């Protein structure tokens, strides 16, 4: 049984970040962006890649066999805050 939780929209200097977390039981099965606004292309580049470093953390937390990930970039404080606010509801 999956449940979806929506995090707060968090404003950062790179734009607004809002994530949605899907959990199956106590496992995070997906993290997606609802909002990724940005004011310039440089910020958009950062925001477009804002997820995976946190994904690194969530994957590492779920699988004792993975210590990190390659091929994924960037995070922002806003992403972490929005994710945490979503997890707080779970």
């Amino acid at each position, binding site marked *: 049984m999956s449940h979806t939780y929506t995090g707060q929209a968090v404003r950062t200097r790179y734009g607004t970040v809002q994530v949605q977390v899907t959990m199956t039981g106590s496992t995070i099965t997906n993290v997606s962006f609802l909002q990724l606004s940005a004011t310039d292309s440089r910020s958009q580049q950062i925001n477009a890649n804002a997820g995976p470093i946190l994904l690194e953390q969530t994957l590492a937390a779920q699988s004792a066999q993975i210590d990190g990930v390659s*091929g994924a970039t960037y995070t922002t404080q806003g992403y972490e805050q929005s994710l945490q606010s979503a997890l707080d509801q779970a």
Partner: protein
Amino acid sequence: MPVADDSLTVLRRVEPCMGTVFSLDVRAPAVDDSAIDDVLAWLHRVEATFSTYRADSEISRIGRGELAVADASPQVAEILRRCEELERETDGYFSAYPDGRLDPSGLVKGWAIERASDRLRAAGAANHSLNGGGDVQCAGSAAPGRPWRIGVIDPSEPGRVLAVVAGDDLAVATSGTAERGAHVLDPHTHAPVTALASVTVAGRHLGTADAYATAAFAMGGAAPDWLAGLRDYRSFVVFPDGGTWASPGFAGQP
């Protein structure tokens, strides 16, 4: 990071740097915060020297002909020498001039992460991993008797791990369109390359792995043949249709 539960981690730091985020995961033994601060400060100095986004960086001034390499930081000459070697090793698919202008970024980040890792090890952090925007240098092992295991993210679905590479003192670098948009250029044509979704290269040294991944990505369909010939680096390629190719020794599925 409240969501993390990596019980082996004794210290974690996250630091914005080089337009991305660096994540440091220290396993026992721990080191003083001041040692980590010193290494992070060094990374920021490297960024200030090599950033092509900063008009006043040494690399920008060299590119405009305002500064001679001989008058720049010694690291600049070191990087440019290594770029020339890599250009020969990669049939010109790695270049310090990917769009015609001086831009050694394809080497700098991996090199800087590797050197920062060396500094952390010298400061006493015998076992750690330093991840800069998806390029990872691991030192030592993840735990006594257990190698580091690094997952390769699916470029089309960042929630998935497509493969895992494991080893002590392991470096893993990935180049792909997800990393910098469609901005990996073929140095021969200066055209964006889109034939592959991502190239991951793993071995001992992140600077070399990063440059090889960048070069192989620019090679497009010819990448697997070239990667298969590398002696000390294993590799994993994802194609736009989701198909994958792995060199011998790049094991296995998660």
